[in-house]
């Protein structure tokens, strides 16, 4: 049953991926002839335009292009990116590794930190700790992300000179191997992930805090306390697991969408990633690239959705029985 649901969703998304980009005005060849920021426009003749259309298979009827796309996909071939002039799969993988590294690190950190701080805040409700946390998390979360990112650069990179102003590694760094490379990459990862953690923390924090507050008022918590359990055990063994239930869905979604990358970090820190790739592919009407990127996002989101479903059933016996 669930398999059928996923298959239907998949086929709808696949078709949307194909047709939506083609419904946007303009076409991929426009980008080959110059754009407003271009220093060097290229005016091509009709005949050359025809040759290019044939080369990219864009002269075929739409329905033929669609079936070709599906057949290629079935063979594991995502096509050739028009703008990037490379196989879609290799461009995607090139970006994906950086996005997974950056977003993965940041997501794990802000989810863990959000849960911990949220639980702490709820437990210390009304105290200075709670209010201090509430205010700081809230204020970081409400700053425009790019502004926060630039502030971090100015503070840590320009004033203190402690971190690089951007990039995923130093320009000649990838010649180094092993440990050196790992250090290089971590060093460049720090500021962008800090920016992400600060801006994304508030969602998880507030949800955990609220959920925790609700649970802490339950009878079984009072029972646990009157049994004489240590406060730490009450909190970590009785309250937190129950409070986490509503958070699981949210976290799964966060992980699913993490694949899309984050524009602001990628732009401000010149960090390679999926966000700017999708933006660029959209701007240049690079149909094969868009199809590939959206397909990847779909698979990711569906995977984490499924994971959340299964996890939920494990965490909550009521769901399993229903």
């Amino acid at each position, binding site marked *: 049953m669930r398999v059928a649901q996923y298959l239907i969703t998949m086929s709808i998304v696949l078709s949307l991926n194909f047709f939506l980009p083609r419904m946007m005005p303009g076409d991929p060849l426009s980008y080959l002839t110059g*754009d407003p920021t271009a220093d*060097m426009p290229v005016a091509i003749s009709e005949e050359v335009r025809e*040759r290019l259309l044939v080369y990219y298979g864009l002269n075929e009827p739409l329905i033929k292009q669609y079936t070709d796309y599906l057949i290629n996909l079935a063979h594991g071939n995502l096509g*050739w990116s028009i703008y990037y*002039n490379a196989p879609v799969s290799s461009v995607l993988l090139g970006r994906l590794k*950086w996005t997974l590294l950056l977003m993965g690190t940041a997501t794990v950190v802000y989810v863990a930190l959000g849960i911990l701080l949220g639980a702490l805040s709820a437990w210390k409700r009304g105290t200075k700790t709670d209010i201090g946390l509430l205010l700081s998390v809230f204020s970081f979360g409400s700053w425009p992300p790019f502004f926060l990112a630039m502030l971090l650069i100015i503070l840590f990179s*320009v004033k203190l000179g402690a971190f690089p102003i951007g990039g995923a*590694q130093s*320009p000649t760094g990838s010649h180094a191997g092993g440990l050196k490379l790992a250090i290089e990459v971590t060093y460049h990862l720090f500021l962008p992930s800090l920016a992400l953690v600060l801006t994304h923390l508030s969602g998880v924090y507030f949800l955990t805090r609220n959920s925790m507050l609700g649970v802490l008022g339950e009878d079984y918590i009072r029972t646990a306390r009157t049994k004489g359990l240590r406060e730490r055990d009450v909190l970590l063994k009785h309250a937190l697991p129950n409070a986490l239930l509503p958070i699981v869905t949210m976290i799964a979604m966060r992980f699913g969408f993490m694949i899309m990358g984050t524009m602001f970090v990628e732009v401000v820190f010149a960090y*390679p990633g999926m966000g700017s790739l999708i933006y660029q592919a959209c701007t240049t009407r690079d149909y094969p690239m868009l199809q590939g990127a959206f397909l990847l996002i779909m698979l990711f989101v569906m995977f984490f959705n499924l994971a959340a479903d299964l996890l939920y059933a494990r965490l909550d016996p009521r769901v399993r029985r229903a």
Partner: protein
Amino acid sequence: MRIVKRKQIVCTLLALLLVSLVAGCGPAPTPTATPVPEEPTPTPPPVTLTLPGDDWGYPSPFARYPRGPGYIQMSFLFDTLAWKDEEGVIPWLADDWEASEDGAKWTFKLHEGVKWHDGKPFTAEDVAFTFDYLKEHIASWFEALKEQIEKVEVKDEHTVVVYLTKPAADFLADIAGAMPILPKHIWESVEDPKKFTGPEAVIGTGPFKLAEYSKEEGRYVYEANPDFFKGKPAVDCLVYTKVSDAALALKTGTVDAAFFWGKEIEAVKELEPEPNLEAIEGPSFWVLKLIFNVGRPPFDKVEFRRAIAHAVDRSKIVEQVTHGGAIVANLGIVYPGTSWYNPELPAYEYDPAKAREILDELGLGEVSLTLLTTGGFAREAELIKADLEEVGIEVEVKSADWGTVDGLLKEGNFDLAISGHGGIAQLHIMRSPTWPATVYKNEEYDRLFEEQERTMDEEKRRNLVLRLQEVIAEDLPVLTLYHPKMWCVYDPAKLDTWFYTKGGVSIGIPIPHNKLVFLER
């Protein structure tokens, strides 16, 4: 606890930073660069130059992206028959050349002793092969070669004769001075050159060899070619790396030069007080235009277009939007200061009263128009809207992304549009003054354009181009707005040979990344 934890992370990372090492070809500009390993001979330490860049495609003549910087990245690896410096065209792979009287036959005498990066000798065969190959396969900028080249003859190992289908005055600058010569022994077996991206695809004769390319990080690393026929470059390692804020990158020493244009004058001003930096200014060969849809009333009336020209205060746009980062444009499109520039065109001085007068005479009644623009020119659009409303024309600004705007322009589905392009150092871009829209047809213009294309006599040709500009300024299919300026801000201690190429690099790329900058001259 939270704070302590974060402090620990910062401390750990700072400690890691101290031991971070530098590798690759030469020292990178990290704050704690460790000394370069001792060289066996007492040669000066290798010079590494780091410049702001982006991904412009794998730097082969076919896989590169079609825009200017893509060509530049490729031009470090590949050479052309002729090249340009600050004075104009200079011999490059060809020592000398001769054109027949009518300009349809060109004989090139090639430099002897040139070697490909793989050690094989460069000969006339390679040149002839390149012409033939580019006729069959699409390479950006040389798409029309099929129609332009009749045949190419190899006279001897170092002499090649090119026969054109029709005389082309710009052959030297636009083709001989721009077309990268390919090694025949590599490309003769390549079927689909766009998809050929192995290490052999970047073997040229150029001053640099490609050491590394990262598409996702927008990074190129080149190392000097010690066997380059004009001598080993002054820069041993040339690095292009993506940065988000070039001014900041220059300030922190992440890059050794940064390049700005137009509205980015703010960054140039910000860098001015830095004592260790210098700046040079150059032309952009770029124009922002207000395009009229001359096929659509009331734009079909030239008086109406002139009224708009009187109503729009172009110098206000230059002052308020570009903050002085541009000059008011030549109404004839050609970049001021180039030899083709016509300084004596009708001016259409800003005069709303006169505009209103013309409009009254036309008796059009209520006029309301849409003004199409991309987000980047929203401020310009607002000023134009205010100016036109001042003379009683209703304007609705419609902003869209460039793909959409370009689509609408090509369909001819607009009233007024703001659009810009570069390349106005060269004349071929003037084929259609309203480009990328194709709404304008004028027989006299087309005749003049085609005539100048095949006129070899410099003076005669100049007169034709002057007349071409008059037609645009009188007939006004477009109202040109401004030409941005360009700047190169650099650290002279690293490299102080920056210059702006006359008429732009190759077919008119305005950025100062001419490979000559990195050579001993």
